């Protein structure tokens, strides 16, 4: 497959899948990460923290 370059995966694309996808099994200790609302809140918190950081840690390198 040559069409797609294997660039570094963007963190947001990864989080779409790792926080909202994947099989949810009840771990012994796992918090309710299955709760998407909680995840959204976490991400909102992240957005504000990102804006204060330079440079954006998930920006594509040139």
């Amino acid at each position, binding site marked *: 497959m040559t069409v797609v370059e294997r660039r570094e995966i963007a963190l947001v*694309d*990864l989080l*779409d*899948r*790792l926080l909202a996808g994947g099989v949810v099994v*009840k771990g*012994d200790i796992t*918090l309710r990460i299955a709760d998407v609302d909680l995840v959204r809140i976490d991400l909102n918190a992240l957005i504000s923290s990102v804006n204060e950081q330079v440079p954006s*840690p998930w920006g594509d390198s040139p």
Partner: protein
Amino acid sequence: MSGLRYVYAVCHPYESPLQRQLSGVSGAPPKRLTHHGLVAVVSTVPEHEFTEEALRANLEDLDWLTATARAHQQVIDALTAVTSPLPLRLATVFRDDSGVRSMIEAREEELRRVLDRLAGRVEWGVKVYVEKPPESSDDSRAGRPPAKAASGRDYLRRRRDQTRAHDDVWQRASEFSDRLHATLSAFAEDSRMHAPQNAALSGATGRNVLNAAYLVPRADSEEFVELVDREKDDVPGIRVELTGPWAAYSFAGEFSEDPGVES
């Protein structure tokens, strides 16, 4: 105290070893734990990072979240090279190996069913962005130089076209996304919509209007990629991004209430 067991994925048994030097979350190498003919891929993580309280705080720590997500993905990626893993949600943790075995026993039937469903499939991500319309896009699209208006009427038309271009872009983007999604869904075995990504989080330019995942047989991947390439055209103001192939993350958790999947 030997630490906790972090579980990345459940797989059918696979022959090839994972690449050497692979390190998991918190740095420990992933290992296989076979039980009832299923393989859980696990590594040891320090307990103090994964108590409920710590985890809650860590999820809001960007550095921790980034490192953990990337380490998780690296292991899944390595597995994807040798099998079709069933990825688990981030931060699924057990006290010890026997906890992992109990989980496999309790969920064995469902795990097998989903594993069979995902065997030989990968996931592709397709995103559509609307960008700001370029100046004089109508002129350049028609292959004309932005020449002086031949008449006052032409001038007015051009002005009107320009101010309308922005609204048109949204309309076009919406139609384009619907069409693209219909075409790709018809090719793929299944599809899932993710929420549009926040530009502040993604750092991407333009507004994300479609964020979809498609389940495609590995063998058909090249054709799928070509299909996306063909469909994305060169519509002014609209950008299409393709990511993958991913392990079938977006299709791993939603088969529980869907017993009648046709094949």
